[in-house]
């Protein structure tokens, strides 16, 4: 509800922005740190990196973009977008792996 911020609210949110900023820095630090540790398991590396990225994305969208207290209309639009995005990615990947036999040829 960015539109009805009182001066006090703004002071509070400024603190929150700084906190988010710090969290983003820390997240970046962890991801890069993990990279230099050279974890052997690819699966673990991917999970970790994408998990941290998702958390960071959530922070940016939620606080910087004020999504956590946005209007229903926006949620509706974004929810359907996410649904279609998952459809696009999921079904395409599925389709390209459901062949009668292993059909790749080189």
């Amino acid at each position, binding site marked *: *509800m*960015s*539109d009805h*911020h009182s*001066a006090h609210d*703004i002071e509070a*949110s*400024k603190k929150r*922005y*700084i906190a*988010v*900023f710090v969290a*983003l*820095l820390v997240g*970046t630090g962890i*991801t*890069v740190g993990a*990279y*230099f540790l050279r974890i052997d398991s690819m699966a673990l*590396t*991917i999970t970790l*990196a*994408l998990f*941290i*990225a998702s958390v*960071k*994305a959530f922070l*940016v*969208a939620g*606080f*910087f*973009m004020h999504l956590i207290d946005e*209007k229903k*209309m*926006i949620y509706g*639009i*974004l929810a359907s*977008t*996410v649904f*279609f*995005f998952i459809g*696009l*990615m999921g079904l*395409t*990947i599925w389709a*390209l792996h459901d062949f009668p036999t292993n059909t*790749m040829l*080189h």
Partner: protein
Amino acid sequence: MDIPYTVQPRRDTGLYNAKLGIWLFLASEVMLFGALFSSYILLRVGADPGEWPQRLLNVPIGTVNTLVLITSSVTVVLGWAALKQKNFAKYRKLQTITVLCALTFVGIKSYEYADKFKHYQVITKDGKVYDGHLVKQDNEVVVLEGGLIDASKGKAHGVMVAQREAELHGGHHPEVEIKRSEIQKIGNYGPGHNTYMSIYFTLTGLHALHVIGGALVIAYILWPGAGMYKTDPERYINRVEVSGLFWHFVDLVWIFLFPVLYLL
């Protein structure tokens, strides 16, 4: 009749027009980058084992760029908050930092691009693979600063090792000279090098265009368009908010691009 809800939110939706508009636009951007991310996954999963280069990019540089964008994101939102508190001077200071961050980001990105275009791979007729920065090329010879890659470990693996060592330990590499007549194939690490480089350039290129576009808008509002703050301050603040939303989205895309392209 004027168009309603350009400044004040409409009661039942709680939104002013531009806010709704930018979110709709961002929804379409999600699908745009979503399609590219999907393509990334498909190309990667479909690649031959060992063909997908890993750790090819310079991570410290990428990290710096990540930090630059994160900083710019916080300055945008703080700038907007300052404006809400009627502190125009502080807003201007913070947004100037944003624009500078954007310039830094684009600068660093161009350096990275240039580096990839200078970086060559040469395959000779007897199957040897050389890799390194181009020093000189003419009709007779090609000179690379780099070396022979251990092709026995698989092409991509070799590339990855050579590249990373070269970047991590600075450039004291011997120069090798290869005769034109022996070369079977020569090419730089441009978009056509392999599908990884293709998707790397496409994703980061499109993202960079967004950075440039966003920076232009922010700069326009900040300087030539600032007059509106006097005539119609509420609308001005809305503009700042909307451009900020776009900027955060650009940051958000990078938050995924960085690990996906640099780290995995």
